[in-house]
């Protein structure tokens, strides 16, 4: 097993593990903002997973999806923050 194979396999395992841990925070997170941050981090992990996937499966098609995911994650966070600021007014 060469170094690149080893690191790709390890990366898949570690990113999957961190997605699991983030899901725990997404489930228990006390406030809405905690869940928004967890979602943001999940999309970041999705981008990293896409990059690893492109090496593992020898296809670069999904890297375009990474750009879209990055843009959508930012817009989603901004939208959530906007409605969080507007929320509790009587």
């Amino acid at each position, binding site marked *: 097993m*060469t*170094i*690149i194979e*080893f*690191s*790709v396999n*390890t*990366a898949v395992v*570690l*990113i999957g*593990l*961190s*997605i699991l*841990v*983030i899901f*725990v*925070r997404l489930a228990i997170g006390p*406030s*809405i*903002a*905690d869940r*928004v*941050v*967890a979602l*943001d*981090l999940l999309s*970041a*992990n999705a*981008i*990293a997973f896409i*990059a*690893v996937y*492109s*090496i593992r499966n020898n296809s*670069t098609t999904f*890297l*375009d999806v*990474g*750009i879209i995911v*990055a*843009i959508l*994650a*930012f817009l989603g*966070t*901004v939208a*959530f*923050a*906007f409605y*969080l*600021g507007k*929320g*509790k*007014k009587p």
Partner: protein
Amino acid sequence: MRETAGGILLLLGTVFILLSAVGIFRMPDLYTRMSATTKASTLGIGLVLAGTVLYWFDIAIAARAISIIVFLFLTAPVAAHIIGRAAYFDGVPLWKHTKIDELAEDLEKKREGEK
């Protein structure tokens, strides 16, 4: 040789991503969680994409990966700032050992302005 360097960068980036996951799970309040995740995950993704660029070594892939990296480096601090500020004014509590709270005056003013 080039692929080996890419693999090492990939491993480093994944370790940083795992660290950000541990940070979001272990830190005591929202603001420290954001501090851990924003920095670690930005650096982690940057390193993973740099590893991808080194592995493929192709101009089209490099353009995509670098555009993702630049976009993330531009937007991650902005998103963290916006969500942190909204959460503070929404009343998310600080950690009990927090020493400095410079936004408290703004919060007072905003509360008075709403009355």
